[in-house]
C-alpha cells in the first residue's frame, strides 16, 4: 500500500496546513496557534499570565483555555481543558473554556474530520506543561530556592515547607517567560500511566447551559435595530437567476421592509432574493408573497438518473479519473481471472439538516464586517464572505457561538452571504434565518455516489480488486485549494471524496479510481457530511468484501483477518484493525451465539476517516430478516473503536452512540432525491432521520492502549450500513447495493 500513501501519507493535517500556510488562499496562517503574546503575557502579569496563547491563567487562579475548535456536541472544549489541566497540574474546578472568534493568530481554524483531539493533543499538553514550569520558576524565584526542589499539583506549587496557589503566584506578578516553539518541544510530557484527569469522565463544561436554555446559538443572537431576512427559495438548487422581483403583495405585511435581489460576487448564490422585515415572522409571511420571475438556469432538467448516466459514462472511459491506489496490476489480473465478480453500489443525496437551521447575522462597524453565527471552518469562511462583500479578508471577523449541530454543514460558510449582502444593501444589521425548507433545499448536500467494484479470489484470497468511485467532489465546492495530487502526480484528486478506499487489507493487485461527476457538482454543489468519503467508499467496499468472501466460501471474519496481515505499509494498522474485530466478535457472540433461521451477524471494518489519523473501527450487526416481506429487525449493533487514548471515557461513548445512530440513519432512513434540478425534501417529513423508537440495542466500547488519541465523532458512521447489509445478505440471500436499505429493496432482492 506504499504508493497511495504518498498522496495521503502526509495526512490531512499536514496537507491542509501546508496548502493554507503557503498562502494558496491568501493567508499566512500556520497549523497551530503560534507561541505569540509573550509581550502581552508579561505586561499583563498582574492580571493574568499566558505562557502560550492557548491558555490564560488569571490572578484568581482561573485557567481559561482558548478553544479554536467549534462545539457542536462533541464537548471538545471539555477535552481540551482536561488535556491542559493534566500537564498544568491545575485544579479541575478552576478550568474554563472560551470559544474564540476568528483571528489569524489562532492558525488554521477548522473543526471536522474527527481531527480535533488528534491534532491538538500535543500542543495543548505542551501549553499546560509550559504553564506549570513557568509557575514553578516564579515560586522558585520568589522563595529563593531551586526550581527543581518544587512540585506543582492541584493548582499549587509546594516545596521547602512553602505553598502558593497559581492565582497567588500570578497576582504577585513574577510569572513570566517566553516559550518558543523549540522550548515547548523540549518539555517532557507525562507518561499516560500517570494521568490524573485525562481518562476521567468529567461533566462536560457546556452541558449545564444546555439544560436551562441559556446556551446561545447563532440563531439566538440579536443586535439593536437589526432586521430579519427570509430567503425566497429559487426553484432549482443552483444556477437559477431572478429576472425580476415583485414585492407589491408583500407590502401588505405589517413590518415588511423590502425584497432584495442580491448579486453574490463569490458565486455561491446565482439567484439570491431575500425578503426583509422587522420581525422574522413578518419576513416569513412577506417572502411567501414575493413574486419572482426566475430563469431556472442550466440544471432544471437534472435528476438522480441523469447523474448515474454521467457516472457510468465516466467509469467506462479509462482515461477519466484520478488514481488513489495502485498496487500491482488489478485490471490485468482480472482479465486473466476465471471468475470476476462485479457489483454497483450507490448512495443517494444526503442532507446535513442540523437541528439549528443555518442562519447568520451581519454588521458593519468601523469598516469591519462582523459576522455572527456558528461555523466549522473559519479559515475558509472568512475569505469566502469577504469575496461576496468584495472586501479584504482582513476586514471580516467571524464570531463563534455554540453550534446547534454541524455534521459538516457549517464547514461551508455560504450561509453568511445572504445576511452580509442584505446588511450591505440596507446599511443596517440583518439576520437571515433559513427555515427548514431553505436549510434542506440550499444544503451543500453529500453528493449521490455511484461505484463499481470488481474482484476475483484465488485460494481463498483476493487476487485483484478495483473500485471506481464517481461522485460530486465536495472540495471543488468548499475549498478548491485543498485538492491534492493523485498518485501519478498527473491529476487533481479530492481526498475527501475517496478516503476509506485505501484499506489496511493486503491486496496484491488493487486499483482505486476517483471520477469527478461535474454534473452532480453543478446541480447540487456538494459539501462534507459526517464521516465524509468513507460514508460511501466503506459502504461499497465492506459490502463487496463479503461478496468476495461468499465467493471464496469463507467466513467473513476469517476472510478479513486473512487479509489483515500487516505487510509493508499496513504494519501497525492492520493489527489494530484485527484487534477491534476480534473484540467485536467476542462481545457480539459472533460464531458462538446460536441464531435462529433468518437471523445473521454481519461484519464491517473501517479506519474511520483516513489512514494518517485512523480510528480503527469494527461493527457487528445482528439482523433478523422476514424472507417473505423483506422486513428486517436490527437485534443489536456492536461497535468497537481503538481510540489510542480516551480523554473522557463518557465523552467517547457519547460520540460513539451518536456516530453509530447516524450510521444507522444513513443506512436505513435518510435520503432524498434531485428532481428538476432541486432537492426534493422540504422538512422532517420528507427527510427522516432516526427517532427514538428506531434505536436498536447498542453495545459500544473502545480499546485504549495509551497511544496517541484519535477522533471519535465519525468512525462508527462508516461501518453500520455495510454491517447491516452484510447481515441481511447472510440471513436471507438478499444483497442490497443501494442506500438506504429498505424492506422493499430487501424484498426485491429476495425475489
Amino acid at each position, binding site marked *: 500500500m506504499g504508493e497511495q500513501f504518498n498522496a495521503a501519507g502526509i495526512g490531512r493535517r499536514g496537507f491542509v496546513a501546508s496548502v493554507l500556510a503557503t498562502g494558496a488562499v491568501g493567508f499566512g496562517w500556520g497549523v497551530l496557534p503560534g507561541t505569540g503574546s509573550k509581550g502581552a503575557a508579561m505586561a499583563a502579569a498582574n492580571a493574568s499570565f499566558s505562557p502560550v496563547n492557548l491558555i490564560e491563567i488569571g490572578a484568581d487562579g482561573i485557567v481559561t483555555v482558548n478553544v479554536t475548535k467549534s462545539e457542536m456536541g462533541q464537548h471538545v472544549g471539555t477535552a481540551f481543558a482536561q488535556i491542559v489541566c493534566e500537564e498544568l497540574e491545575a485544579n479541575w474546578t478552576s478550568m474554563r473554556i472560551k470559544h474564540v472568534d476568528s483571528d489569524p493568530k489562532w492558525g488554521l481554524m477548522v473543526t471536522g474530520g474527527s481531527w480535533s483531539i488528534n491534532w491538538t493533543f500535543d500542543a495543548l499538553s505542551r501549553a499546560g506543561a509550559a504553564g506549570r514550569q513557568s509557575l514553578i520558576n516564579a515560586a522558585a524565584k520568589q522563595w529563593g530556592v531551586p526550581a527543581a526542589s518544587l512540585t506543582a499539583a492541584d493548582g499549587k506549587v509546594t516545596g521547602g515547607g512553602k505553598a502558593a496557589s497559581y492565582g497567588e503566584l500570578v497576582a504577585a506578578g513574577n510569572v513570566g517567560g517566553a516559550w518558543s516553539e523549540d522550548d515547548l518541544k523540549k518539555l517532557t510530557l507525562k507518561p499516560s500511566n500517570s494521568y490524573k484527569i485525562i481518562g476521567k469522565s468529567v461533566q462536560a463544561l457546556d452541558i449545564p*447551559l444546555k439544560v436551562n436554555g441559556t446556551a446561545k446559538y447563532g440563531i439566538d443572537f440579536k443586535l439593536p435595530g437589526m432586521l430579519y431576512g427570509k430567503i425566497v427559495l429559487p426553484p432549482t438548487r443552483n444556477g437559477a437567476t431572478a429576472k425580476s422581483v415583485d414585492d407589491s403583495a408583500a407590502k401588505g405585511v405589517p*413590518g415588511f421592509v423590502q425584497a432584495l435581489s442580491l448579486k453574490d460576487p463569490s458565486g455561491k448564490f446565482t439567484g439570491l432574493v431575500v425578503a426583509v422585515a422587522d*420581525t422574522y*415572522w413578518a419576513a416569513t409571511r412577506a417572502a411567501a408573497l414575493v413574486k419572482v420571475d426566475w430563469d431556472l438556469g442550466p440544471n432544471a432538467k437534472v435528476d438522480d438518473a441523469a447523474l448515474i448516466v454521467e457516472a457510468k459514462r465516466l467509469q467506462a472511459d479509462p482515461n477519466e479519473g484520478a488514481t488513489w491506489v495502485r498496487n500491482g496490476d488489478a485490471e490485468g489480473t482480472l482479465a486473466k481471472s476465471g471468475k470476476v465478480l462485479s457489483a454497483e453500489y450507490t448512495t443517494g443525496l444526503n442532507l446535513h439538516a442540523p437541528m439549528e437551521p443555518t442562519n447568520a447575522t451581519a454588521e458593519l462597524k468601523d469598516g469591519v464586517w462582523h459576522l455572527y453565527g456558528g461555523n466549522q471552518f473559519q479559515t475558509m469562511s472568512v475569505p469566502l464572505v469577504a469575496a461576496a462583500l468584495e472586501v479584504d479578508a482582513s476586514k471580516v471577523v467571524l464570531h463563534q457561538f455554540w453550534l446547534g449541530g454541524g455534521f459538516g454543514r457549517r464547514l461551508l460558510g455560504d450561509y453568511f452571504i445572504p445576511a452580509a449582502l442584505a446588511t450591505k444593501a440596507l446599511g443596517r444589521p440583518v439576520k437571515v434565518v433559513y427555515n427548514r425548507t431553505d436549510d434542506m433545499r440550499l444544503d451543500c448536500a453529500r453528493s449521490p455516489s455511484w461505484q463499481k467494484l470488481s474482484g476475483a479470489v484465488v485460494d481463498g484470497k483476493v487476487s485483484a480488486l478495483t473500485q471506481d468511485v464517481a461522485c460530486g467532489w465536495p472540495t471543488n465546492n468548499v475549498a478548491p485549494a485543498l485538492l491534492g495530487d493523485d498518485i501519478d502526480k498527473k491529476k487533481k484528486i479530492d481526498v475527501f471524496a475517496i478516503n476509506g478506499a485505501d484499506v489496511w487489507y493486503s491486496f496484491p493487485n488493487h486499483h482505486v479510481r476517483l471520477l469527478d461527476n461535474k454534473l452532480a457538482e453543478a446541480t447540487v454543489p456538494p459539501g462534507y457530511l459526517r464521516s465524509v468519503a468513507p460514508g460511501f467508499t466503506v459502504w461499497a467496499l465492506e459490502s463487496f468484501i463479503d461478496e468476495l468472501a461468499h465467493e471464496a466460501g469463507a467466513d467473513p471474519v476469517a476472510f478479513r483477518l486473512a487479509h489483515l496481515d500487516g505487510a509493508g505499509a499496513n504494519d501497525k494498522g492492520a493489527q489494530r484493525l484485527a484487534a477491534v474485530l476480534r473484540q467485536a466478535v467476542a462481545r457480539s457472540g459472533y460464531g458462538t451465539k446460536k441464531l435462529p433461521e433468518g437471523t445473521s451477524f454481519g461484519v464491517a471494518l473501517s479506519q474511520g476517516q483516513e489512514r494518517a489519523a485512523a480510528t480503527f473501527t469494527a461493527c457487528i450487526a445482528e439482523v433478523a430478516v422476514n424472507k417473505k416481506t423483506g422486513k428486517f429487525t436490527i437485534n443489536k449493533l456492536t461497535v468497537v473503536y481503538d481510540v489510542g487514548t480516551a480523554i473522557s471515557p463518557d465523552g467517547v461513548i457519547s460520540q460513539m452512540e451518536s456516530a453509530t445512530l447516524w450510521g444507522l440513519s444513513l443506512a436505513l432512513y435518510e435520503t432524498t432525491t434531485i428532481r428538476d434540478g432541486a432537492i426534493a425534501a422540504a422538512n422532517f417529513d420528507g427527510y427522516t432521520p432516526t427517532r427514538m423508537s428506531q434505536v436498536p440495542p447498542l453495545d459500544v466500547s473502545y480499546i485504549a492502549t495509551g497511544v496517541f488519541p484519535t477522533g471519535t465523532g465519525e468512525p462508527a458512521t462508516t461501518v453500520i450500513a455495510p454491517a447491516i447489509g452484510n447481515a441481511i445478505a447472510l440471513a436471507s440471500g438478499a444483497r442490497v447495493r443501494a442506500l438506504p436499505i429498505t424492506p422493499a429493496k430487501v424484498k426485491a432482492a429476495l425475489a
Partner: protein
Amino acid sequence: MNITSREKGSNAMITITVNGHQQTLDVPSDMPLLWVLRDVLDLTGTKFGCGQNLCGACTVHKDGKAVRSCQVSIGDAAGSSITTIEGLGAKGEHPVQTAWIKEQVPACGYCQSGQIMNAAAFLSANPDPEDEEIVRAMDGNLCRCSQYVRIQRAVKTAAEIMKTGGAATNG
C-alpha cells in the same frame, strides 16, 4: 424590534402569562407563540427546528401541557399560562434538568429544551413510566445528534429523582 408600528386593526393587545409573569403584547394575533417567545420576549431557550410540528424543538408548556409553540398562535395562547425552559426550574434544578446533567444528555444541545419540556410534562402525567411509554412519549422529539440512549435513560433517572423527593415543579 419595532412591534408597535403595525397597521391599526391587525393587532389586538394580547395578555398571557409567561414563566409566572403576566405580559401584555401588541403583536399580530396569528404570530406563532414560538416567535413571540424568541423575538419579542427574548426567551431564546425555546428553539425553532422545523416550524411544522415535526421535530418538537419548540416544545413549551401551555397550562401544564406540552405544546409545540410553532403551532400555537399567540391569539390562541391568549389568557393561558406558558412555561418555557427558562421557567421550568427556578435555577435549572427541575428533576428532569438534574437527570439530564447526571446522564450527560446534551450533545449540541439544540433539541434539548424541547426534549426536557416534553419529558417534564410527560412525567408529571405519568411519574412511573415503562420503557415503551417513554419511547412513545418522546418519539416526536427529534435529536439530530441522536442522543436517544441518554434521553431515554435520563427520563427514567428523572422519574427516580421525583420519586425520592425532588418533586416536579411543573409549570
